[in-house]
């Protein structure tokens, strides 16, 4: 909402200066976006210097000038002035500029085969003098001003307010003045009485059709006969220009002016173009009309249209049609001032995708009692500017508008705001806002002003009082440190812990979109359905992600392409399994690319591999408080992992959902996405599948038991079928005697020479220790033999001798 301070002062009597007014606007809740000088048409005229002037190839009297306009490159201008010569300082106007003398709008044009970008102006063209002999000659003093504005324009400063949707009344200058007056900035001026002399009837019949979903409830109009439409007078033009709009004609400018002034949209029809009568009715599917934006609209059922016998004239409260639009030749006009229902306006404009000033206002709620005030102000102005005779007003209405009331308990104010103000002051504030008040002992009976559709209940009154009184009166109470429950629940603590645990292993945490490119997402989608976004921000972010990996791998590739070789990224966040609220899982996804050691003066280079991923996965889970010995590792993983180099982790044998996957990323995916890396591994941890441990850490610590008896270590090497897993071998050994066998460690795996092709050799180190005595040779021999015989019988392995 834009306006000038001068305009405001037509409604507000105040001694305050601009700055104080601006501050007060903010304080009452009318947010000031900017307060700057309005643009001027004269801004387009800039100081320039002719760098070079050559004879036009096809015209004796014309010259082609290279002109310095303060930009990096000069522009070519064709000029006919005899004084256009090299080195001259002059005034340049670019394409789009309007020449003050003849109001001609410049455009890029070809003059005798040479393209001219703009014009060099004479003093006459600039309305500075009558000298039209040659172009303006400026002194050397202008050397410093090349590219700057030639005219030192003093346009008024324009206030731009950001009006919240609840305040349609402040989409008019008068509404703003009323709020300021209530806040003590001054007093609201009375609207001058009309001098209109209305002594004939509006003879065009107007009907609002009574039908379901009728979007118009009041239609006021008057006929103005014998006008002579013209260019607006300067004061009006200035106002229109100051709002950043273009003056069109007096009649159109006046309707726009009244709209901004009183927040009262109006529409003017050329009365001679309306066929017989005006009918306000619902549209029928397929009806079409050409609107003032020069677009043709095809209507649906039940849109509120203003029509005549030949069809649709315009969409009520949204946009008029070209057929009945006013022109400079228009002699008789019908001026419309109506009330349209916000819901209807909103629905129609959404369906047709039209946004106009009128629509913006009607959908927020126009004062239904401003019909006549709008007609009076506009008719007065039209009569003054364009002449003519004004008819009596014709006001059709479907129903009498109601006055809304609310009962306000005065104590509510302190209850909500925490501070008290006098009843007298409360009454003063709401009276100045336009409420009618009946005073009771503890309460007020209020009649809500017709321009405030946002006010319906007592809390709205509290807001009115406190914003006008000033938010600075609200106390700042020191917060109490009382707690209702722990800050984080178990799952949130797990989130927090795992996040920092993974990061501590050298991974960079990242946050990527919850949406992904369906093409990449499909590589990681597995069993889930694709979740499409109906209106995605772009075609490559068109689905909700089913995994962390699609985005992570996309950005990993970007970094690889930037020349980074060894990268570790992870993200913790939602992945989606369905379209319903809650069909999402919290997952950690981590990717690591490149080498573990690179260009290292001590270590041999090696690529990252599945066991790096496994270490990070297991360590993270163990750090989160789960026992490594209880974890079950299986060799199944989703299809986006390397089928032979990936696995899953289960918290126990009973769990059916893995808490994690790890492995190398499938080479086909690396190839398909063209990721130029030595190796790519990843892991995923599913936070929702961690079963909730029942005990808190303080209850989990069991009695501290240890043995000081001597422990004994013994190495075994078994030749075993390749299919048998190392973990199986370990499980067999541990289960022989859980009390005695304290640790089993694989320290070598060998396949190749001296070992049959379908076999491998696994070397294990077993630690044996009793908690009751020091084991003697005989005891050790016994357990060693038992280990060998059990492993051999249960796994078909053979001890290597």
């Amino acid at each position, binding site marked *: 909402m834009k306006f000038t301070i001068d305009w405001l002062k037509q409604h507000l009597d105040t001694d305050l200066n601009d700055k104080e007014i601006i501050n007060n606007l903010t304080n009452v*809740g009318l947010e000031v976006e900017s307060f700057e000088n309005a643009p001027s048409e004269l801004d387009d005229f800039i100081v320039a210097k002719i760098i070079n002037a050559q004879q036009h190839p096809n015209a004796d009297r014309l010259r082609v000038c290279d002109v310095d306009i303060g930009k990096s490159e000069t522009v070519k201008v064709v000029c006919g002035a005899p004084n256009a010569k090299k080195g001259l300082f002059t005034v340049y106007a670019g394409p789009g500029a309007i020449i003050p003398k003849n109001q001609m709008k410049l455009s890029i044009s070809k003059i005798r085969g040479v393209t001219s970008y703009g014009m060099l102006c004479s003093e006459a063209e600039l309305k500075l003098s009558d000298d039209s002999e040659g172009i303006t000659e400026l002194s050397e003093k202008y050397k410093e001003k090349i590219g700057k504005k030639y005219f030192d324009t003093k346009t008024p400063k324009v206030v731009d307010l950001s009006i*919240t949707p609840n305040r349609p009344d402040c989409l008019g200058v008068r509404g703003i003045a009323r709020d300021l007056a209530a806040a003590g900035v001054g007093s609201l001026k009375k609207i001058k009485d009309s001098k209109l002399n209305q002594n004939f009837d509006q003879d065009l019949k107007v009907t609002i059709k009574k039908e379901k979903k009728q979007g118009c409830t009041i239609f006021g109009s008057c006929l103005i006969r014998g006008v002579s439409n013209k260019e607006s007078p300067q004061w009006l033009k200035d106002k229109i220009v100051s709002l950043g709009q273009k003056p069109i004609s007096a009649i159109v400018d006046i309707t726009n002016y009244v709209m901004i002034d009183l927040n009262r949209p109006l529409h003017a029809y050329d009365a001679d173009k309306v066929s017989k009568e005006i009918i306000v009715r619902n549209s029928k599917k397929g009806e079409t009309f050409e609107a003032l934006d020069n677009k043709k609209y095809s209507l649906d059922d039940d849109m509120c249209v203003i029509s005549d016998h030949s069809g649709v004239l315009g969409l009520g409260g949204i946009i008029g049609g070209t057929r009945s639009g006013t022109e400079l030749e228009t002699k008789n006009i019908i001026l419309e001032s109506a009330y349209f229902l916000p819901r209807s306006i909103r629905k129609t404009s959404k369906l047709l995708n039209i946004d106009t000033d009128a629509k913006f206002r009607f959908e927020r709620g126009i004062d239904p009692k401003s019909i006549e005030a709008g007609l009076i102000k506009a008719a007065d102005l039209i009569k003054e500017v364009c002449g003519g005779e004004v008819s009596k007003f014709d006001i059709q209405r479907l129903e009498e508008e109601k006055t809304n009331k609310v009962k306000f308990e005065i104590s509510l104010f302190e209850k909500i705001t925490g501070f008290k103000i006098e009843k007298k002051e409360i009454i003063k504030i709401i009276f100045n806002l336009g409420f009618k008040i009946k005073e009771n002992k503890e309460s007020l009976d209020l009649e809500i002003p017709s321009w405030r559709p946002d006010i319906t209940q007592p809390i709205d009154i509290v807001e009115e009082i406190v*914003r006008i009184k000033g938010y600075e009166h*609200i106390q700042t109470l020191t917060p109490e440190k009382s707690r209702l429950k722990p*800050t984080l629940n178990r799952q949130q603590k797990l989130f927090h812990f795992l996040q920092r645990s993974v*990061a501590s292993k050298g991974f960079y945490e990242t946050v990527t*979109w919850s949406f992904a490119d369906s093409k990449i997402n499909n590589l990681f989608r597995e069993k889930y359905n694709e979740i499409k976004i109906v209106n995605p921000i772009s075609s490559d972010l068109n689905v909700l992600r089913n995994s962390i990996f699609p985005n992570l791998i996309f950005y990993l590739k970007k970094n690889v392409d930037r020349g980074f070789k060894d990268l570790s990224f992870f993200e913790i966040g939602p992945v989606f399994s369905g379209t319903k*609220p809650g069909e999402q899982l919290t997952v950690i996804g981590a990717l690591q690319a490149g080498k573990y050691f690179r260009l290292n003066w001590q270590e041999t280079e090696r690529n990252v591999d599945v066991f790096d991923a496994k270490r990070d996965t297991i360590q993270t889970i163990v750090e989160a408080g789960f026992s490594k010995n209880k974890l079950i590792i299986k060799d199944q993983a989703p299809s986006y992992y390397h089928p032979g180099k990936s696995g899953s982790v289960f918290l126990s044998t009973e769990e059916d959902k893995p808490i994690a996957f790890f492995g190398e990323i499938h080479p086909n995916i690396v190839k398909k996405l063209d990721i130029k890396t030595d190796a790519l591994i990843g892991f995923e941890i599913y936070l929702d599948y961690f079963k909730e441990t029942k005990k808190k850490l303080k209850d989990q610590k069991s009695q501290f038991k240890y043995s000081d008896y001597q422990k004994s270590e013994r190495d075994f090497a078994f030749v075993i079928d390749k299919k048998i897993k190392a973990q199986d071998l370990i499980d067999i050994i541990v289960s022989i005697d859980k009390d005695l066998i304290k640790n089993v460690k694989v320290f070598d795996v060998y396949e190749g020479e001296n070992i049959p092709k379908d076999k491998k050799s696994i070397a294990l180190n077993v630690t044996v220790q009793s908690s009751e005595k020091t084991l003697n040779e005989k005891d050790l021999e016994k357990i060693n033999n038992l280990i060998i015989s059990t492993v051999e019988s249960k796994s078909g392995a053979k001890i290597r001798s």
Partner: protein
Amino acid sequence: MSDIKKIKDGYLNKLDKDQNIESINQIKTELFGKNGIVSNEFKKLGLVSQEERKKFASDLNFIKEELQNKITSKIEEIETKEINLKLENEKVDVTLPERDFKQGKIHPVSQVIDEISSIFSEIGFSVEEGPDVENEYNNFTALNTPDNHPARDMHDTFYLDEKKELLLRTHTSPVQVRTMLKGKPPFKIIAPGRTYRSDSDQTHAPMFHQVEGLHIDKDINMGHLKGCLNYFIKEFFEVDKLKMRFRPSHFPFTEPSAEVDIGYEIKDGKIIIGEGDKWLEILGCGMVHPNVLKNVNVDPSKFQGYAFGIGIDRLGMLKYGINDLRAFFETDYRWLSHFGFDPLDVPSSYRGLSR
């Protein structure tokens, strides 16, 4: 006895000069071996008269001890010298690189969420969460924003179905609705999380983060709201002085509503929060609208309180001098390295919010 004293002096002299371990061992044998000089002297003990024996024995022991001490210290001296020499030869160039270590990073958004949670934890708030996909009711209608309300235009919404019933939440406020529907007052929660709007430029990203706050009890008023936010902003920006301005505004789900500005100035191209004469809008808040309370089965005549919504990314940008919002979500290794936090740097009230 005088002989043996002379011999002793001779050997002490010799030991002073001798440098290597072998010759010392030789001396040791000469003195204390089976037929060593000192050993032989002891053998003479029986021959000495009764009255002289005690003195003889004592003198002899004294000499033995003196020689032995000398030998021991000499050996130690030589061994130390040898070890030092050996270590000298083992010297490496310690300026060669250490074994590689990897330092991970926590994303600024996560760090800021933890900072926020830590601050609100101090004044008794607990953390609630809600789903990213919401229904139209929780995101709008329950929050007093019916379908025909122009306020809906302020939220460019992503939809998951043509009927526009399922959407990506445009703010964290639906967590208020969920929290109140499943529990009974009082409520004192914050809800950080991802939010989505179909808007994208330098200052807007289609996904961003908000933290919602909600405190409902019997007598929570605007003074509590102001106090809570004043406390939070001071703690968050770690400043003693803070210029804060409450300005009337409008949100459908709160009334009265306010936007909060904080004072700032620009010094050497950097934003300094707290003082200065410029205002920066950082959050929206207000008293929860009675219609919202009714929608979640809380009796507005018995309970009341405030709610607020803060843009997390923006807070992070202001505190840590980050210019571009979109960079938050672009996973640039260099950016994460520069703006990320060490994982051990966990914000807490006792250790301080940030280093």
